[in-house]
């Protein structure tokens, strides 16, 4: 048994899903948060067989345009392998916006599946001054209508009962009637589809035929034509011609008939008890969607976000650095010197610990994005930036996936499913990894903290460090513009699509949802630190430790004895011994597998100002960018450069030197590394997601190649320019 939650975007399907199943899933107040099918089980089934609840993306109509709407259709019409047709549909409607929501609801009624209407957001409807008569609506639709407030868990029990009661109920036959000419063509089409072996002859086929006939060039038509051949395309064209000659508009007739039916029904259902007032949402939009103020508010918020990522997290980060150092010291004492000590201290503590130190920043970034998503501001950013997205050859709808890519490109790429135009969607996917995701944050923060002075700018409003951070975020976005334009002019050529998007009502962000989002991301980050990064750190450690030839130890033993016999003061002896120790560790590292590989690639990275250690760390970070921090931690610790006096990796980097004693790092090198990581595509998960969304390995290969070339060239330019300026 399975029931599907279906409805317009922003009607609270996911909130309802969580209330029904006790399952938590990501909820955002912008269209397209749910882009795939998700399932859980109904909590209370009173001894019946378990009932699966499926949460689907939002859609405005059965005539699919975007990839997420196609997912809804495939589930509702029982296509696509494992997804059986649902046994019942829960049509989720927004009570405050019943007219528009009922359009989709009347389409769902004709699917021939039992249906229950969950009328959500009753509280908002009442506060906007309308009273809704649910029984009257039930009467008109011929199905059960349950008023609910999903966010406050009101009406959930009644909904569960209605679901169970309606599972075996007959389907409603209340539906608007279409003009004669449309009905005749529809009957004809149904017949020829059934004769032509178009397949399953269930009741849904009539509504499917309607969507095929009345949505020229839509999803249904292209799908059926693919299956039945060109003959069907000609038949459809002929039938549409007949509808037009009967005086109807093919594209609009369905909407007109359904909205006319709704217009007739609504007065019986909705009574306005208070005249319409300008809602608080509209008042807020007067400022927030203003072309100048709105944009200023947006930039201010983003600036504040990055400033606080830097400023708030610093003390916590210092504490984590301190703890890491103490832990390293503890293990050095507890475990006897040798391979195991080196593995724990250099591989695990210095490697994985270095990455974990960035958890606070990532949590703060997600706090901001979760608040923006939950309050409904995201859709406004799409509206505000529509004209700017024109620079990319895209429209504002592409901005939301790009903005969420600042947290992580994987959900960002998945949320492109709500973009209708295929080419626009592909361009958005290909530039999404250029947005500076949270995995780059550790790299930026590490290098900025170590090499960029904390000079206050603009009278102390913002620090030079935060400004550099913001600049790094801009680098990716700025490079994305020409990339998108080139893609739009060449491989993904097509006209710019006009903006069309609903702006949902603002609401206060729910602390539960925001905190859950932070927890979820924090957990994902820690899990990746504990698995992937851990594994890479160990591999890097092993490559950097072995073969560990005994000859080096012997050579340095001789030196140590020579120093001891030189008869200098105790203090000078200690300094000399420490120096020998560092030399020994450095010698080991150079002789290791990693060191030999590194020296081999050094010529390629030297023009960027990097030494072989940075180059190796960059290559080792292919699975995920943040690994570079762990790898650097391990390499420098193995190389003996992380001495007793330095706190954490930042100080170690400041002390790193070339063999001739010059420091490796300066501002130019730090900038070059940051620019490289801003633009490269060192992320296995992103590449796998691109493959899944675009159904071909060619695209991830293209993405990786173009981004790596871009990153190398940009890092080269940055270093060569900066070294001459600084």
């Amino acid at each position: 048994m399975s029931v599907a939650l279906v409805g317009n975007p922003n009607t609270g399907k996911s909130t309802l899903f969580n209330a029904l199943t006790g399952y938590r899933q990501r909820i955002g107040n912008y269209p397209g948060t749910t882009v795939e099918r998700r399932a859980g089980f109904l909590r209370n089934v009173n001894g019946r067989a378990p009932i699966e609840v499926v949460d689907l993306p939002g859609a405005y109509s059965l005539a699919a345009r975007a990839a997420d709407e196609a997912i809804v259709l495939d589930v509702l019409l029982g296509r696509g392998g494992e997804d059986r047709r649902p046994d019942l549909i829960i049509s989720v409607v927004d009570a405050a916006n019943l007219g528009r929501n009922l359009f989709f609801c009347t389409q769902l009624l004709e699917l021939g599946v039992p249906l229950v209407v969950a009328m959500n957001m009753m509280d908002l409807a009442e506060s906007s001054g309308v009273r809704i008569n649910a029984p009257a609506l039930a009467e008109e639709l011929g199905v059960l209508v349950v008023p609910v407030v999903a966010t406050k868990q009101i009406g959930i029990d009644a909904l569960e009962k209605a679901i169970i009661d309606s599972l075996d109920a007959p389907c409603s036959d209340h539906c608007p009637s279409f003009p004669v000419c449309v009905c005749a063509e529809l009957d004809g089409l149904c017949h020829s589809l059934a004769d032509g072996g178009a397949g399953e002859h269930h009741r849904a086929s009539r509504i499917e035929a309607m969507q095929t006939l009345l949505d020229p060039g839509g999803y249904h038509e292209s799908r059926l034509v693919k299956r039945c051949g060109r003959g069907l395309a000609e038949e459809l064209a002929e039938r549409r011609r007949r509808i037009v000659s009967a005086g109807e508009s093919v594209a609009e007739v369905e909407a007109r008939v359904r909205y006319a039916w709704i217009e007739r029904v609504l007065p019986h259902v909705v009574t306005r008890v208070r005249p319409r007032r300008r809602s608080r949402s509209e008042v807020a939009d007067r400022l927030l969607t203003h072309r100048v103020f709105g944009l200023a508010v947006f930039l201010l918020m983003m600036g504040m976000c990055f400033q606080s990522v830097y400023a708030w997290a610093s003390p916590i980060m210092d504490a984590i650095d301190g703890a890491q150092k103490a832990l390293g010291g503890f293990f050095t004492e507890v475990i006897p010197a040798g391979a195991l000590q080196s593995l724990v201290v250099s591989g695990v503590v210095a490697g994985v610990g270095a990455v974990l130190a960035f958890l606070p920043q990532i949590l703060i970034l997600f706090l901001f994005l979760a608040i923006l998503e939950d309050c409904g501001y995201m859709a406004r950013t799409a509206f505000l930036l529509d004209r700017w997205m024109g620079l990319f050859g895209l429209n504002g709808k592409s901005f939301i996936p790009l903005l969420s890519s600042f947290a992580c490109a994987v959900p960002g790429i998945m949320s492109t499913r709500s973009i209708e135009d295929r080419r626009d969607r592909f361009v958005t996917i290909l530039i999404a990894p250029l947005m500076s995701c949270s995995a780059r944050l550790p790299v930026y923060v590490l290098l900025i903290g170590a090499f960029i002075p904390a000079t206050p700018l603009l009278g102390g409003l913002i620090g030079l460090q935060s400004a550099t951070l913001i600049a790094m975020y801009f680098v990716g976005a700025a490079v994305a513009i020409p990339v998108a334009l080139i893609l739009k002019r060449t491989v993904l050529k097509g006209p710019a699509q006009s903006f069309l998007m609903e702006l949902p009502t603002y609401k206060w962000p729910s602390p539960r949802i925001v905190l859950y989002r932070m927890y979820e991301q924090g957990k994902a980050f820690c899990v990746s630190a504990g698995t992937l990064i851990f594994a890479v750190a160990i591999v890097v450690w092993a490559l950097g430790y072995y073969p560990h030839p005994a000859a080096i130890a012997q050579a340095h033993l001789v030196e140590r004895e020579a120093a001891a016999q030189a008869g200098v003061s105790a203090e000078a002896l200690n300094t000399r011994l420490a120096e020998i120790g560092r030399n020994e560790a450095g010698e080991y590292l150079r002789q290791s597998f990693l060191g030999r590989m590194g020296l081999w690639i050094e010529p390629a990275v030297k023009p960027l100002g990097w030494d072989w250690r940075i180059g190796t760390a960059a290559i080792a970070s292919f699975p995920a960018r943040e690994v570079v921090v762990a790898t650097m931690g391990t390499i420098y610790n193995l190389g003996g450069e992380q001495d007793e006096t330095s706190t954490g990796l930042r100080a170690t980097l400041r002390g790193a030197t070339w063999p001739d004693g010059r420091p490796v790092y300066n501002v130019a090198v730090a900038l070059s590394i940051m620019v490289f990581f801003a633009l490269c595509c060192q992320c296995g998960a992103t590449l796998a997601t691109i493959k899944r969304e675009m159904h071909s390995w060619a695209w991830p290969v293209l993405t990786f190649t173009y981004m790596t070339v871009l990153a190398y060239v940009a890092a080269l330019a940055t270093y060569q320019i900066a070294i001459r300026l600084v």
Partner: protein
Amino acid sequence: MGRTKFFKQAPRDSRGTRLAIIRRFAIQQSEVDSLGVAMKGTAVHDRLSGMKTGETAAIISIAASQASAKRLADMGFVRGALVEMIRTGRPCLVRIGATCVGLGADHQRSILVLRT
């Protein structure tokens, strides 16, 4: 034809009456066609892009590609529906029913409205 006569007899300045007619007969193509002819004569129809902030207008028709027209119609932009201009520009912000919708330049141009 009878309806058209009635329309012509309606007072010139009471656009509310005309709106009521459009809304009442939204479903009958022939009626609206004749209304369209009548309205071209009186030049009261306009594109949505020509509306000013705060104005409300009724949609007469959508002159767009079938794909765009279908998308707009499904979202509630059907003949007879009232739209209020909240913010002009590209994109503009309109209220239709209880929803705010952002509309790009092409969509604004393709929606023909009758201003009140």
